[in-house]
């Protein structure tokens, strides 16, 4: 089963473009990363940064036309998904790689009973009989914490609250015990209190089942406590990638710096909230050079002319920036100052 190096998923130089009337949108442009078995990987970025498209590309759910996976490899358990036949991919979807989407209000079929939607998974992939699949559906609803699962399994989605629907989505995604769970902003559309519950649930179930998780979000606060590795995406490219702890402590990219400074800090004396100036770029018409340059406070002349290199600033820590090493060194210095102060207190 194992590929030998412990990686469940290896994405190499993935490029997904959308051919629109407005030109070619390079939604994902040369993304490379690995996911180790049992690990949780966080992908953060603003809307339009390509994080969702990356993950839809992994299970080949890009609508074509207008979308097209132009190049790259998605090696899942030793096999390149992008080179499989359609029916082989279908046997992976839902069975070995399952997805949870952002909006639980619209992600379930409103015309179908919850039971049927859940049973569909195990009947399709595990060959369960109706009775087996039904029993399994009830069991899954109990696992994700739906009260009165036995009665509610025959309800329709509109009879469930947003949080409960997301629990149903999770139950559905996990019903075939997938090796990889991709959660695309699973808590964004929910109330704050429910958000925490849903994330906690994913965390617990992950620990119990040992599945690997890719967690997509635009909220750095969410990924902090949940992920082992982090990827920061911007304009279809990976800007920084590092172990979560390292990325928070010593970021090596001005964009990551900006994101980290944007997290609201309730203990801060200042009342104002930091924000990165400007808007994300139009990925159909990217300027030459670094796509973040117009918004970057570290930018120099070279940034708007030459595309930045991907620099390895530390082991397992990469940053896409002309000044990656400087930014990293500054972070390290600041961090050790903070740590010294903490020790003195």
């Amino acid at each position, binding site marked *: 089963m194992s590929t030998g190096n412990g990686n469940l998923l290896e994405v190499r130089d993935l490029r997904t473009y959308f051919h629109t009337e407005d030109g070619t949108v390079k939604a994902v442009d040369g993304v490379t990363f690995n996911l180790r078995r049992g690990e949780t990987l966080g992908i953060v970025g603003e809307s339009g940064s390509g994080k969702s498209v990356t993950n839809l590309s992994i299970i080949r759910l890009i609508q074509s036309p207008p979308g097209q996976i132009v190049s790259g490899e998605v090696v899942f358990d030793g096999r390149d998904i992008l080179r499989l036949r359609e029916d082989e991919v279908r046997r992976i*979807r839902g069975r070995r790689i399952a997805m949870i989407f952002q909006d639980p209000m619209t992600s379930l*079929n409103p015309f*179908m009973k919850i039971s049927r939607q859940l049973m*569909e998974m195990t009947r399709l992939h595990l060959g369960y009989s109706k009775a087996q699949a039904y029993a399994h559906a009830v069991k899954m609803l109990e696992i994700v914490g739906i009260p009165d699962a036995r009665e509610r399994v025959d309800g329709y989605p509109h009879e469930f609250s947003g949080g409960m629907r997301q629990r149903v*989505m999770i139950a559905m995604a996990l019903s075939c015990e997938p090796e990889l769970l991709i959660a695309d902003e699973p808590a964004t559309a929910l109330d704050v209190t429910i958000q925490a519950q849903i994330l906690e649930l994913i965390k617990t179930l992950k620990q119990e089942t040992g599945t690997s998780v890719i967690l997509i979000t635009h909220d750095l606060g969410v990924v902090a406590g949940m992920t082992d590795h982090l990827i920061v995406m911007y304009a279809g490219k990976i800007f920084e990638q590092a172990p979560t702890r390292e990325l928070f402590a010593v970021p090596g990219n001005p964009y990551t710096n900006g994101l980290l400074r944007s997290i609201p800090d309730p203990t801060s004396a200042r009342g104002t909230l930091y924000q990165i100036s400007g808007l994300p770029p139009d990925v159909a018409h990217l300027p030459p050079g670094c796509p973040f340059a117009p918004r970057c406070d570290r930018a120099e002349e070279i940034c708007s002319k030459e595309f930045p290199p991907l620099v390895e600033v530390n082991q397992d820590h990469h940053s896409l920036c002309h000044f990656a090493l400087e930014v990293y060194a500054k972070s390290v210095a600041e961090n050790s100052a903070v740590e010294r102060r903490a020790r003195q207190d």
Partner: protein
Amino acid sequence: MLRFIIRRLIITIPTILVVITITWGLIRLAPGNFYTGDKALPEAIEQNIREKYGLDRPWHEQYLRTMGQILRLDFGTSLRYEGKSVNEIIARSLPVSATVGILAYLLALIVGITVGSIAALKQNSKWDYASMTLAMLGISIPNFVLGPILVLFFSLTLYWLPPSRWDGFPSKSVILPVITLSAIYMAYIARLTRAGMLEVLRSDYIRTARSKGLSETQVVIRHALRGGLLPVVSYTGPALAFLLTGTVVVESLFVLPGLGKYFIQASLNRDEPLILGIVAFISMTLLTMNLLVDIAYGYLDPRIRQ
């Protein structure tokens, strides 16, 4: 559900009375009378007729008498087809209209939904463009143009089908009227299906269905069709009512002894009881169909069942 149906049926009665009142008023407002012809009648004879049919009474008396009859479902006798009751005429002509209507309805549904679904699934392909061009033509060409063209081609050139005759069902004589009648409905249903399916196919829950590993056929049949066809359902109810009760143009074109033909004859003849009878019947059918659509909606969409 039962309470909903009963409530709707009760609302139906005033609706039909309003429709009949307006029709009655329009007949009275139009100049002339059923007995007026090219030659003026002698005064005495006209007086006789007016007395016989109660036309000399004040208008509100006439109105109340007519309404009283209709509430008892007695539409009286035709003024032109002497001795024939309105109910008899409807009973005899309805089967002809309904036969052609149901066949046209089925044809429109089958072809429309199939073509519309294919167009949606192969959006922006040559299939899509070809079928939508045909649908556009179907909607734009009026049936009084399409009918004669079909007759010219299939009857008068190829001698395959009779141009205008009614031999009952099944017979060759139904083919041309059914096609002529269903063309516009077929085109409309194809467009509605395409639009509905396209919207559903882009929705989040279809993405979920695909991410489960279902095949495209399973996704479409199990998950997309039901939501995609809802707009078609709300259209086909009233459409069926109009198809069943006959269409004036197609029945005149092919000389079918259906309800539509009698309706236009009655209007030309100023045959008040027959006009009111047919109008009442058509509105009842229409309201029933709307009610059936609402009930069907409840079954198709669990969100509005309650």
